[in-house]
């Protein structure tokens, strides 16, 4: 459904923020043929442009559309939870113009023809760009590598087993080594599969009090360490999809200091919530990895500030009431997040971090890591844009989410700031109704 329209759109009176170019100025932006034709502080200052469509931004922030680097959908195989279409509606409402989707579907995206299928379905139904990741091992079984070269040619932007760790170091070593041949990005999920098996919380006083089966937080850093060592051995580019503990950040910071091509992401919920938020067994806050201690949450916020954490992701994972309305240990993990990604990130800005820096973790950084052309307001770039109001307060209402699944960890949460309008290829895909 994304089509580059030939019309011109003139944005005036905006605060233009383009982290990729270090730009933060008041000014205007011109879209032509779906691309950014001009941008500058004096553009449309003096005279009202004579264009058919003029958008007066009234000083709101106009930034590159967000790139969410970790999205699970239900298509193919579980469209009743979320289709590419419904996920893209949620994305548009959240200011997300590109979704990097995980291969954990049914069937698993481990064949070039399935990447092709996904791209065709996205082109036919999705409002935002869909960039598929392919599985790193066939069937996500952690045993044999996929056809990384052919999958890359078909359009896969990275290789990962999604929310599964590859237990066998020999398999991962060879898969990384093969991926390095094609300079392909490998995304790992850092949880030791045996340590976290059949657990649903972080080991500690709170889990003990609730009587929940729990895994030690160091189940994460164990895998972070291993995966970084294997990346160093093989020369692979490694992105750790989600980190949630201070110990992981220390290891990643050390790897970056050694000059290794290692990057990592943090989910919005690990920035906003800690283990105590599970409260009285709130299954909508059951996520993987589980919510951590407050010290770890605080470390995540520091990690974004210092740049050790490269990207902020939603880890959008739709679940139905059938899988969530269960006793905590039996309930499915995951939270939807496309619509709350930007508000959660903006809370860091309200906490003192700079807006361009935080937006960088949602635009320029994922574009750089995944080798995407977007994530910038440079002239000639696709006009994927978000117009956002960083100060608007609102309360999350799970029932009002555009997402087909309503399992948000943030139901009732008070946020400040969200997307007002979203454009993909110069076309408006979302406009918030006036209250």
């Amino acid at each position: 459904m994304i089509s580059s329209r030939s019309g011109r759109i003139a944005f005036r009176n905006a605060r233009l923020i383009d982290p990729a170019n270090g730009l933060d100025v008041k000014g205007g932006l011109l879209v032509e043929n779906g691309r950014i034709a001009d941008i500058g502080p004096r553009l449309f200052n003096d005279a009202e442009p004579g264009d058919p469509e003029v958008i007066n931004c009234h000083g709101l922030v106009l930034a590159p559309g967000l790139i969410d680097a970790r999205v699970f959908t239900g298509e193919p195989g579980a469209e009743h939870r979320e289709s590419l279409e419904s996920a893209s509606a949620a994305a548009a409402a959240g200011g997300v113009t590109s979704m990097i989707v995980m291969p954990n579907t049914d069937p698993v995206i481990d064949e070039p023809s399935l990447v092709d299928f996904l791209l065709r379905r996205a082109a036919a139904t999705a409002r935002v760009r869909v960039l598929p990741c392919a599985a790193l091992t066939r069937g996500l079984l952690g045993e044999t590598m996929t056809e990384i070269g052919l999958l890359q040619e078909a359009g896969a932007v990275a290789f990962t087993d999604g929310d599964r760790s590859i237990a066998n170091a020999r398999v991962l070593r060879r898969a990384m080594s093969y991926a390095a041949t094609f300079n392909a990005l490998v995304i790992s999920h850092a949880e030791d599969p045996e340590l976290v098996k059949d657990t649903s919380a972080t080991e500690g006083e709170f889990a003990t009090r609730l009587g929940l089966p729990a895994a030690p937080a160091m189940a994460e850093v164990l895998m972070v360490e291993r995966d970084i060592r294997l990346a160093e051995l093989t020369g692979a580019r490694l992105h750790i999809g989600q980190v949630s503990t201070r110990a992981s950040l220390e290891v990643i910071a050390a790897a970056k200091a050694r000059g290794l091509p290692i990057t990592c992401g943090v989910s919005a919920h690990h920035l906003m919530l800690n283990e105590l938020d599970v409260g009285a067994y709130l299954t909508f806050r059951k996520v993987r990895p589980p919510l951590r201690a407050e010290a770890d949450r605080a470390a995540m916020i520091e990690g974004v500030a210092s740049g050790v954490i490269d990207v902020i992701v939603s880890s959008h994972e739709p679940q139905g009431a059938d899988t969530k309305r269960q006793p905590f240990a039996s309930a499915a993990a995951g939270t939807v997040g496309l619509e709350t990604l930007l508000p959660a990130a903006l809370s860091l800005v309200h906490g003192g971090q700079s807006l361009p820096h935080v937006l960088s973790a949602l635009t320029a950084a994922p574009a750089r890591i995944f080798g995407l052309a977007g994530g910038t307001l440079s002239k000639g770039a696709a006009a994927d844009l978000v117009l956002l109001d960083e100060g608007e307060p609102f309360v999350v209402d799970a029932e009002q989410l555009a997402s087909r699944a309503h399992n948000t960890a943030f139901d009732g949460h008070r946020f400040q700031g969200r997307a007002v309008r979203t454009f993909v290829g110069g076309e408006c895909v979302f406009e918030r109704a006036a209250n």
Partner: protein
Amino acid sequence: MRATQMIPRGFHHWRDISFGSSQIVPNWVARSPAGHDNCVYDPLPHSTSPLISPTLMTSPSAAPILPSKHLLGIEGLSPFDVTALLDLAETYVVQGRATDKKTALLRGRTLINLFFEASTRTQSSFELAGKRLGADVLNMSVKTSSVSKGETLIDTASTLNAMRPDILVVRHQDAGAALLLSQKLDCSVINAGDGAHEHPTQALLDALTIRRRLGGFENLVVAICGDVLHSRVARSNLHLLSMMGARVRLVAPRTLLPADAERFGVEIHTDMKTGLAGADIVMMLRLQLERMSGAFVPSAREYFRFYGLDRAKLAYAKPGALVMHPGPMNRGVEIASDIADDVQVSLISEQVEMGVAIRMAILDALSRGLS
């Protein structure tokens, strides 16, 4: 001018040899500025070897041309050894094309082929080579021997030793097996492949094939492509070709490249386009079936797409580049059929013919060191 000035680097175990027969004179002698074709070399102080019997020394045509009574690998040979073997093999190419292919050089000698791994061309090539030189040849395959009943390699060696063979040709799945046997047997041992270590006779037959087509090795660009990690052919070839002055490249996905391969003085490429650019020779390696189902390479179709030699990829090489393959080939995996069968570019059949000739030369050369 003293001919010792022509001795290249890395040369350290030549012996004093009188060349009386032009057919075994290495071609560097013919190029000697002094114009001698009967010169005597004594470049090193430790030039007398117990392996050379006085009897042999008196017979110029039977002068030894290898540094040891065994041929265990290319490492350990000098450029002169290689040149001498290739020169000698030329005469056996002629003999192999004659109506009467048989001589009595090894009459009375016993050659045992001991193959712990399946082989068609190497084993039959040694068998033919031995028979054409008049030796008695015994083929022992593992299936019919007591090795399959649990006998250790050393016990097998003792048993064979008691049968007093003169030359043992051995192929074994473990690196170092040929060396071990050479230490336990009294006869000459020829390594016909030990694990992923060496396959010297393959490298020598490849060298003979290349030299006959292109005249020499100096500055030739040779791209060795495919499963280098598991390949003894690749190791022997890179030693030999580098030693002879060729520029060797290894081209493979990273999963099939051995660690620190660049330390061997070769160029490493993971892309056929850059790896083949300007190559004179494209040497393809066999990819074992069990290695293309996910452990090292995800699938045969992906391997062929990125590393299989087809017309498009061959076009990256120098115009007129020649293609080699040690066999047996996986058509449609590492090489397209139309290239394998194109006599204009493929040297594959010629490699097999040269295989018999070089093995006759090796048997001849080693038998000179036997008492």
